[in-house]
């Protein structure tokens, strides 16, 4: 009736046969070809009951509605700002999507200037990949100072952790301000020594994201680097 051809949580390659039989349901990152389910990309296979999908491990960021990202202002138009969000497409922040009331003849550079980094929400992605951003959301803000580090966008969930537990642990241990964008841009602001520790940790998480026991390993590594004892907050 149905036969799995690969083990759960292993890396699969494009066109690889994942399962046989009509029992299984092809979800994201897979497709059905006659009675076989096939991977449509390089990814980590995820089997949930009868549903098979692949989680991407590589590739540029694909903009999604409701993502909070870090963007860089690259151009200023009459009606707003053009943002580089590190994907194939740029986003548009309209003056109507800011918290301030901006007059028609206002100098837009006073709000966000070219080269500024902002935390912004994606509110719309059309089929032609026109992207609208907004600064009305709670977490949105302009980023002052600090530095930006680029990570694999597919590792962002691990860097943030369940309900932010991982990134909170790192923030508390290093005293750095950290904001992780869904698009793989991470803003860090703290003392030089601590920022360097944060970057080390982030790179370690990127490399070991799929290995179990990550939180404990990172905790040990953090304790070693900062010479502090860390308690992991229990997440409900």
């Amino acid at each position, binding site marked *: 009736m149905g036969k799995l051809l690969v083990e759960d949580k*292993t*890396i699969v*390659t*494009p*066109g*690889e046969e994942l399962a046989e039989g009509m029992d299984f349901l092809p979800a994201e990152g897979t*497709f059905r*070809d006659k009675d076989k389910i*096939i991977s*449509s*990309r*390089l990814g*980590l296979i995820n089997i949930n009951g009868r549903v098979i999908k692949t989680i*991407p*491990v*590589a*590739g*540029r960021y*694909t903009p999604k509605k409701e993502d909070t990202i870090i963007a860089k202002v690259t151009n200023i138009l009459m009606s707003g700002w053009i943002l580089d969000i590190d994907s*194939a*497409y*740029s986003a548009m922040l309209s003056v109507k999507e800011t918290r301030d009331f901006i007059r028609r003849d206002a100098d837009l550079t006073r709000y966000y200037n070219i080269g500024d980094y902002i935390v912004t929400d994606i509110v719309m992605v059309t*089929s*032609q*990949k026109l992207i609208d951003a907004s600064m009305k959301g709670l977490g949105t803000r302009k980023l002052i100072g600090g530095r930006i580090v680029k990570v694999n966008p*597919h590792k962002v969930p691990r860097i943030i952790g369940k309900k932010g537990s991982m990134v909170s642990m790192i923030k508390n241990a290093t005293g750095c301000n950290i904001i992780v964008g869904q698009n793989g841009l991470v803003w860090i602001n703290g003392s030089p020594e601590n920022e360097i520790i944060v970057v080390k940790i982030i790179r370690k998480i990127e490399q*070991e994201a*799929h*290995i179990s026991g990550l939180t404990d390993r990172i905790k040990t590594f953090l304790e070693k680097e900062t010479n502090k004892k860390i308690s992991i907050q229990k997440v409900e």
Partner: protein
Amino acid sequence: MAYTKRNDGRKFDETRPIEAKAGVIKRADGSAYFKIGKTAAYVAVYGPREIHPKFLQNPRNGKLRCYYNMMPFSSMGNRVRPGANRRAKEIAMVTEKALLPVVDLTEFPNSVVDVFIELPQTDAGTRCAGICAASMALADAGIPMKGMVAAVSMGRVDDKLVVDLDYSEESYEKGTVADIPIAIVSNTQEVSLLQMDGELSRDELKQAIEIVKKSCSKIDKIQRNALKERYEVKNE
């Protein structure tokens, strides 16, 4: 005179030794290295990204763009003058056609996926090595693909059909030679690259394609292993 033994002692259906590695160029979105005998190819994939000039945009589908180049010191003999020549342009085009059947760029309208193929060392079979590396690099870049592509040059040296012609066989003087680069799509076993230089009978062509399918199947395994090795979890 009949060609009874290959110059390097290989069996008639044996390829030269193969080395494959993914993720070799950090700046790229995806990359790979593929070496067969002395022919080595590096491929970097950048994309999906904005396409310039804008008039090349396709609002329905992303575009795949390939470039092929041999480094000036790559061949036995005189230095190869840098710059795109007619041969390089043609190879780039057939490489693109060889990869298109597996690549799915419908999610990336108005953008381009650039594939750059560079060879630091050549000993025949360069376009095939480029295609093998490009297929891996595209997967490494997380591009949606229905399968992968492997390619190898079949040859007819005198009266024998041989797999993976090397330069000494290509320039065999004691009899006639045909050089037939062929690319096979993994899942469907369909042919996505077919060229021929020399003389060949219809029957020989049929045989050649069947032999190449077997070789490409072996190459396919090597390509996939290289991709998995890159992302595989290293358990402590």
